[in-house]
């Protein structure tokens, strides 16, 4: 009450009291007192001005507080007298507010809470791409090491730049060797984010150059759980990939970095072994704008630098374009539309809950006519009545809000539980979802808004009550509540319409998931076990030792009971990972730097048979395509279509352009389009080199089984241990599991589950509303029904009369809902797959389902109406 209203009122009071004194003085002077005496006497008569001011101020505060306390006390008493009504209303609001709070807390954590870095809005992402790359999302474009170095030296728009790249290590601690995620970073990475070490030091300039000493920084969790949380471990050695890395620092507890899933281990980049090439783009770049530099200015400077680099290095950079984005987009870009959709969907549930409770309140208007009339007769003003009823609705809303806040915590847990682990690791900000002040504020805001929303209409209705009629009317007249019941009809109709929109949305999402699951990935996902093996470079020093391992282990796998065959590929399909390569076709000269670019994979000769990818033309790689024989290559159909549209690709030759020493490779076969990216993306042109001719130490195994593939994991693990105890089994998963957990499926499945639950809730609430309305009208019309039956109406007629009324409302709701859905499902289109936003069948099913449930909701009160005993009904008066 003190600010700012109180201050103004306070100075006005001072002026009012002073004017009193002035008038008294003037009167005394007129009566003949000397001015001095007049002033002194008037002030004395007035008394202690300070005390007067104080007691007058009390009069303001008290009134205000007193009436609220009185309203609250009266409200809770009334609510306690109707425990059934109150419970239903509070539970309904708790459902609505709880679901909204849960979704909001996730949205807040993901989209609104600042990223845990210094001035995060100042951090941009930079990358290089080419039109020839077929990159589905250019915000994931990488940069080459020499280009990055040139940027850091030339760009004036940035305070600093840093680079990162995901990595994996075999960590040999006290127990068995295990695979850990890691990050390779430039020395400037953490300082660009503005992160300070909790312990030890950051990497220093000069520690991220070729062949620098091996050092590492670990996450706080790793330090606590694996290193005993002992500060003295800084300076000691960690064994990673059978090599010693000196631990120099420990990250702060709250640090996370979503793009590489907040790994436990970070090491400086070591740009050697080809990583120093200008045309190998592998670093993800972040950059902090200088104060006062706009993103547009920075971008135009980067474009200038880029064209200078293109002129200086046409072979590598001629067709390179710069991509700039925000770090937040990089982190939440994919889930943002999903979360906003969910927030929109869940707000419908809240609206329905409000409509339901408003409808309950309206029903009570009629029952409380007498009470209201008495209060009006006793002098209660209209304002006081509205305030009284708003207090009641706010009490309900806040009780519902408090309960909803509890439920929301449970809801958030449930929501996070259905997110696959890998996805959750990529969204570390969700692990910190909690009730923070913003969420609390949201809940309070939701409670106030909904309290007013469902309270104000009934309150105005109530305050309009005519005293005389209210006192006379026994609250049973058929015509008296006509306006109110029309209002309730409207509420129930809009509830049904809203529920239909959610139902249609859920249907579209479910259909998208199903379309995605039936999308042909180009290979057979059933009975396929996959896992990875990374051979440490210092024990498997050359390709031959890696090949020997691969041959021996593949044989061992084939001999396991339940295994049909096993193949090797460097990167599994549907992973969305992998590299691309530039090439020129023999006899097709092309300007330097403008070569075509496509996905490149290395696969064992039997890979396509194991994956069941059909051979379209030519042959698979064979036993003869080994290291010292002419290099061959298999291409997919998309490759053939893109680069040999009117020719037979088999027999054609091309060479890679990253080195002049690269030989020509002959295309010996064309295979079907195995999807290397995501299920919702078109298949990109891909070429496959035989593993025997292009070996890697990191290999993925694909094992085709006769039985449930997951059951074979223990024997596979045993077989690997028999090969080399130092090599861990990485990420053993069935292909079906990989598909189910893939981002493309997750992005549809998650909202389909949630919107589905919201639709279920919405339907339940709307049906409760419809049921309540129809049974209320039956109870109000008991007398009328009694008369009809007494006059000879058959129970079937009465039944039909009640049912018709309910179903008319339901039909209107469904109709309006269909129109609204047709307009609103457009907003879903970025999440839909293989289904039109206005899918006739989905809409039809949603409408029918709602109609069917609505019929059930009307049946029970309809049945009750037929049981009305005319004698009892007529005596009722």
């Amino acid at each position, binding site marked *: 009450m003190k600010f700012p209203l109180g201050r103004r009122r306070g100075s006005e009071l001072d*002026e009012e009291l002073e*004017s*009193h004194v002035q008038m008294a003085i*003037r009167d005394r002077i007129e009566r003949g007192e000397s001015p001095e005496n007049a002033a002194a006497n008037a002030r004395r008569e007035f*008394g202690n001005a300070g005390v*007067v001011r104080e007691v007058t101020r*009390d009069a303001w505060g008290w009134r205000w507080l007193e009436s609220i306390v009185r309203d609250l006390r009266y409200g809770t008493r009334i609510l306690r007298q109707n425990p059934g009504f109150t419970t239903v209303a509070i539970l309904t609001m708790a459902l609505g507010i709880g679901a909204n709070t849960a979704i909001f807390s996730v949205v807040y954590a993901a989209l609104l809470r600042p990223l845990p870095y210094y001035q995060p809005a100042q951090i941009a992402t930079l990358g290089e791409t080419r039109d020839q790359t077929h990159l589905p999302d250019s915000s994931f474009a990488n940069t080459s090491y020499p280009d990055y170095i040139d940027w850091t030296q030339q760009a004036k728009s940035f305070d600093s730049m840093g680079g990162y790249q995901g990595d994996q290590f075999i960590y040999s601690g006290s127990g068995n060797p295990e695979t850990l995620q890691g990050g390779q970073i430039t020395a400037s990475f953490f300082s660009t984010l503005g992160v300070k070490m909790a312990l030890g030091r950051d990497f220093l300039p000069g520690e991220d150059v070729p062949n620098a000493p091996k050092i590492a920084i670990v996450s706080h969790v790793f330090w606590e759980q694996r290193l005993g949380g002992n500060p003295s471990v800084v300076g000691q050695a960690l064994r990673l990939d059978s090599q010693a890395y000196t631990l120099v620092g420990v990250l702060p507890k709250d640090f996370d970095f979503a793009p590489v899933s907040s790994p436990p281990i970070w090491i400086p980049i070591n740009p050697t072994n080809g990583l120093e090439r200008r045309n190998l783009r592998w670093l993800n770049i972040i950059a902090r704008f200088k104060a006062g530099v706009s993103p547009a200015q920075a971008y135009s400077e980067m474009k200038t630098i880029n064209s200078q680099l293109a002129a200086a290095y046409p072979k590598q950079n001629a067709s390179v374009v710069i991509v700039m984005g925000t770090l937040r987009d990089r982190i939440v870009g994919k889930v943002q539309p999903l979360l906003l959709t969910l927030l929109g969907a869940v707000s419908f549930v809240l609206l329905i809950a409000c409509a339901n409770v408003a409808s309950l309140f309206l029903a009570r208007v009629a029952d409380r006519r007498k009470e209201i009339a008495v209060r009006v007769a006793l002098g209660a003003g209209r304002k006081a009545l509205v305030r009284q009823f708003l207090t009641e609705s706010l009490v309900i809303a806040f009780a519902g809000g408090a309960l909803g806040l509890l439920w929301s915590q449970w809801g958030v847990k449930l929501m996070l539980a259905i997110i696959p682990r890998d996805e959750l690791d990529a969204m570390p900000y969700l692990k910190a979802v909690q009730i923070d002040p913003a969420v609390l504020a949201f809940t309070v805001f939701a409670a106030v808004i909904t309290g007013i929303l469902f309270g104000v209409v009934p309150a105005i209705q109530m305050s309009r009550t005519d005293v005389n009629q209210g006192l006379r009317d026994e609250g049973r007249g058929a015509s008296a509540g006509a306006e109110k019941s029309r209002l309730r009809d409207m509420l129930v109709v809009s509830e049904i319409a809203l529920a239909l929109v959610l139902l249609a949305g859920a249907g579209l999402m479910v259909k998208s998931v199903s379309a995605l699951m039936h999308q042909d990935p180009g290979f057979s996902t059933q009975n396929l076990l996959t896992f990875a093996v990374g051979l440490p470079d210092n024990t498997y020093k050359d390709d031959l030792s890696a090949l020997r391992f691969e041959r021996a282990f593949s044989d061992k796998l084939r001999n396991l009971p339940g295994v049909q065959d096993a193949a090797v590929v460097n990167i599994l399909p549907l992973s969305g990972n992998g590299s691309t390569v530039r090439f020129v076709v023999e006899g097709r000269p092309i300007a330097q730097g403008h070569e075509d670019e496509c996905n490149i994979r290395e696969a064992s000769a039997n890979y396509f048979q194991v994956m069941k990818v059909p051979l379209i033309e030519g042959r698979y790689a064979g036993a003869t395509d080994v290291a010292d024989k002419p290099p061959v290559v298999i291409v997919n159909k998309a490759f053939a279509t893109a680069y040999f549209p009117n020719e037979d690709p088999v027999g054609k030759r091309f060479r890679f352009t990253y080195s002049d020493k690269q030989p020509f490779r002959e295309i010996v076969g064309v295979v079907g389009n195995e999807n290397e990216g995501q299920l919702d993306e078109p298949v990109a042109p891909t070429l496959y080199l035989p593993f025997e001719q292009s070996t890697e130490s990191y290999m993925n195994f694909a094992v085709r089984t006769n039985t449930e593939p997951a059951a074979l994991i223990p024997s596979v693990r045993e077989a690997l241990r028999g090969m080399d105890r130092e090599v861990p089994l990485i990420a053993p998963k069935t292909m079906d599991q990989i598909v189910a957990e893939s981002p493309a499926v997750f992005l549809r499945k998650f909202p389909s589950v949630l919107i589905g639950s919201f639709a279920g809730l919405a339907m339940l609430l709307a049906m409760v509303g419809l049921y309540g309305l129809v049974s209320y009208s039956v109870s109000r019309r008991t007398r009328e029904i009694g008369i009809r039956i007494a006059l000879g109406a058959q129970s079937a007629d009465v039944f039909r009369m009640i049912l018709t009324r309910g179903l008319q409302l339901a039909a209107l709701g469904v109709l309006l809902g269909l129109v609204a859905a047709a307009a609103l499902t457009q907003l879903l289109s970025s999440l839909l797959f293989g289904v039109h936003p206005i899918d006739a069948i989905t809409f039809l099913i949603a409408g029918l389902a709602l109609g069917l449930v609505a019929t059930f909701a009307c049946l029970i009160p309809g049945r009750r109406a037929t049981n009305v005993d005319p004698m009892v009904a007529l005596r009722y008066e």
Partner: protein
Amino acid sequence: MKERYRNRIELLQGTLDLLVLQTLRWGPQHGYGISQAIRASSGDILRVDTGSLYPALHRLEGEGWIAAAWKVSENNQRVRVYRLTVTGRKQLASERSRWAQLSDAIAGVLNPNGKESEA
């Protein structure tokens, strides 16, 4: 001076509201005017303490029985002027009848025998 103080009567709880409302029946008035009017019309017996008057005025305003507005007086001074509202008029009527009941009741207590008092 002392004599005059003895003649003053402590106002009964709640009667100040009645007096204020009744005073404002004759037209809008500022706080000083109200206190002067009550004093004059009670033959200088009822003197309203400013420490009671202003809280009462602000409380009545809060109830919506009177409304206030700033006006400029004939002496060119800004004064806060109160007027009776419609609900205030109703309130005055009910307070008056309550007062009538109360004074009847008190008179009854003081004179248990009606006839005796008439005699």
